[in-house]
């Protein structure tokens, strides 16, 4: 069995680009479908990547999303260039958000983004600092 991971997506995400926001998730969904990944896993992945992608759009100065696949797992990496998350524990608390009123009026900033990511991911690792931005790595198991 090969554990070598193959990159299937790498896309830049621009800050405050609500026009394209969600497109990386949509692209990944289509790629996974073509690869024959079960629909339940495709759905999980779509929820995770949409939340992470919109976090970059709403909160960051811009970043990128990368997806890698092996026989056993799907790895999603979302890296942005700042400004970083001040309190990671708070960021994982349901209902906590630093989004502006304007963003909340659009139906974002409910404080459920990272909570949903954690719920559907099999593994999640978030590193964030003011200088180095936020780096999220999510693993979704493909093998049962």
């Amino acid at each position, binding site marked *: 069995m090969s554990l070598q991971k193959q990159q299937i997506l790498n896309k830049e995400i621009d800050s405050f680009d*609500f*026009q394209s*926001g*969600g*497109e990386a*998730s*949509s692209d990944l*969904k289509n790629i996974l479908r073509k690869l024959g990944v079960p629909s339940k896993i495709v759905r999980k992945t*779509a*929820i995770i990547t*949409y*939340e992470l992608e*919109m976090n970059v759009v709403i909160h960051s100065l811009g970043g990128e999303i990368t997806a890698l696949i092996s026989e056993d797992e799907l790895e999603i990496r979302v890296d942005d260039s700042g400004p970083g998350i001040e309190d990671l524990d708070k960021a994982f608390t349901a209902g906590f958000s630093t989004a502006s009123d304007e963003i909340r009026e*659009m*139906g*974002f900033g*409910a404080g*459920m*983004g990272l909570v*949903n990511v954690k*719920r*559907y991911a099999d593994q999640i690792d978030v590193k964030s600092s003011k200088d180095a931005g936020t780096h999220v790595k999510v693993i979704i198991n493909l093998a049962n």
Partner: protein
Amino acid sequence: MTVKELVDQFDLEVIAGPDLQKEIDGAYIGDLLSNVMARAEKGNLWLTVQGHQNVVAVALLVELSAVILVEDFDYEENAIQKACQKGVNLLKTGKKSYDLACSFYESNI
């Protein structure tokens, strides 16, 4: 029931109708996008007051049959353009979500 049949039966306004033959399977009501992403299901109608472009991204990802903007809220122009490009149906009505949902329920949607 298809979106076209729904539009005719409930007198809904079609703002973007690139795929009105889509089959409807249930409905979801909500205005928080994270909840819609996590809870709505494929084929659902989505009743909401959000009419901006990212609504189209969510509808596409969840594979919803149509978005129904209630209480006479309006879609943003770029949302309508994106919906036409991506094949997402956008409908609207002056009714409240609750009233519309009740009439859907009575029709076994």
